[in-house]
């Protein structure tokens, strides 16, 4: 049995090396001198560890500022997504009102519309509001996650009716029921939404690229992308900046990888 699984492991390890090699290459280049980085054939481990590359990045671009911007946008939009999502899903799952099903279908249909369709007019609306080049432009339009509403609605619907009856008999109002009965039972979908949203906002690029112009407000990805255009041949600095840009999310991934992978796998399955 051990012997038979050897070729499988061999294949998996070879593929695995291909998956990590770019990360290793990023790290090793980030620690080389510019001269050594351009050496060919290249060296696998830097001869002298040039930690100064990392400091030099901070001298060239406001990386902390970019990160702070990203953190702010990520948390603000996550807060919005959770608030609007829980309330809307509760309404869809537990209230009866005319037009409920039609509205829900409308929400789902909106999810199918690709970004370019609403990007140009959204830009115009943000321009009218005077929000271009402000945090608001990157936060407010992303305070609703339709897929999150969908997940939560499914979850709320399958909670047993007895729970709600018991809460009512105990004198709980609707809102109180939501807070003290429904939410404590909804951890899995809430974690899933949080995971998707944090990864999504941390990595988002297209939208902030378009709605920001000044450097001080740029989130990490946009700042990094412009840095890569300006310093297109300065590979050691680029790799140092990129390493720092991906570390927070990689750390998060290692801490919460079980939740992240399970969330992704769960949403991929047919209901």
């Amino acid at each position: 049995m051990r012997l038979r699984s050897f070729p499988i492991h061999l294949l998996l390890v070879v593929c695995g090396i291909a998956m990590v090699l770019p990360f290793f290459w990023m790290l090793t280049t980030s620690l080389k001198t510019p001269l050594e980085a351009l050496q060919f054939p290249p060296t696998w481990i830097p001869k002298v560890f040039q930690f100064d590359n990392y400091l030099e990045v901070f001298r060239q671009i406001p990386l902390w500022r970019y990160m702070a911007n990203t953190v702010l946008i990520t948390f603000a939009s996550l807060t919005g997504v959770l608030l609007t999502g829980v309330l809307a899903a509760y309404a869809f799952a537990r209230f009866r009102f005319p037009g409920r099903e039609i509205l829900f279908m409308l929400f789902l249909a909106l999810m199918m519309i690709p970004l370019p369709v609403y990007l140009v007019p959204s830009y115009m609306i943000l321009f009218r509001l005077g929000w271009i080049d402000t945090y608001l432009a990157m936060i407010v339009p992303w305070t609703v996650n339709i897929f999150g509403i969908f997940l939560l609605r499914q979850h709320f619907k399958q909670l047993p009716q007895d729970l709600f009856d018991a809460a009512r008999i105990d004198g709980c109002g609707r809102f109180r029921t939501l807070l003290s009965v429904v939410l404590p039972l909804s951890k899995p979908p809430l974690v899933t939404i949080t995971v998707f949203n944090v990864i999504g906002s941390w990595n988002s690029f297209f939208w902030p690229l378009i709605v920001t112009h000044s450097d001080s407000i740029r989130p990490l990805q946009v700042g990094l992308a412009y840095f890569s255009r300006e310093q297109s041949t300065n590979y050691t600095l680029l790799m140092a900046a990129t390493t720092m840009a991906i570390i927070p999310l990689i750390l998060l991934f290692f801490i919460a990888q079980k939740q992240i992978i399970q969330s992704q796998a769960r949403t991929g399955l047919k209901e």
Partner: protein
Amino acid sequence: MPSSSASRKLKEAGVGFLYLLPALLVLAAFRILPILLSARVSLYDWGMAGAREFVGLGNYLAVLQDPVFWKSLLNTGWYMVFTVPIQLFLALFIAVLLNQRIRWLGAYRTVYYLPVVTSIVAVSIVWKWILHPDRGLLNYILSWVGAGGLRWLQDPRGLFQLVFGDTRNLIPLALRGPSIAMCSLIIMGVWKGLGYNIVIFLAGLQNIPKTYYEAARIDGAGRFRMFRSITWPLISPTTYYVLIMSSIVAFETFAQVWIMTGPPSGGPLSTTKVVMYYFYENSFEFWRLGYGASIAFFAFLIILGLTIIQRLVLERRVHYG
């Protein structure tokens, strides 16, 4: 009594609607209104300064007659035709290997998943360096086996030109296949998205009851036969999902082109100018917003069409166990 029940119903409807309101307001302002506006904008020659001239369907007709639009569609098509199936079969293959009750499953899964959580911007910057024609890691590794020397992101030659040794541009433009530059993006795209598909497939595989395989083994079925008669049909809903998702992701390719190709981006010779980049360029670099909105409309039609075609053609073959 009936009147009080009616008023209770009315109250429930009112309160329910109140709960819905925050989400509805945001969606109305930043999804529904823009979608409606988009139709209007596309009917105007609309620049940065605002509407200038009503052109009716002029933008749509201009897009359809624009050779660069068709070129961008072709480029996107090549990207999808290569990335989606390669990713799908490779992911399924690896997922099947991982599903053999193997040791270190968690470690492998983590490694394969790493590129998925990493931002496309970061990954593009790193791969641009790896694909460097003179100093890049890829050409160095290829040189071990005597290959290499390709100029990757700077090479506009079509893949089929290279394969068939067509040095004098005898193959017509549309049949040359993705340019070597586009192949670079394809390689990176497969690498980036593989882990996601593996995780989805793995979840699907774990749902197949083990007893089926035991029964097949008793009947004397080999590994390949078991894959063909049990795994493949039972995994088909997952395959279908992966196919649609990765097609949409592939169609929306943008950041790679912005970061890795050129200057000017979309090069060399516009062979990596995908639809999304073409849309971006027209809307937010040339500020032809009306024209951009028309391109977006076609992009939407194509995504919708892809979904419908895949549904019609494939859904009949999908086996929902």
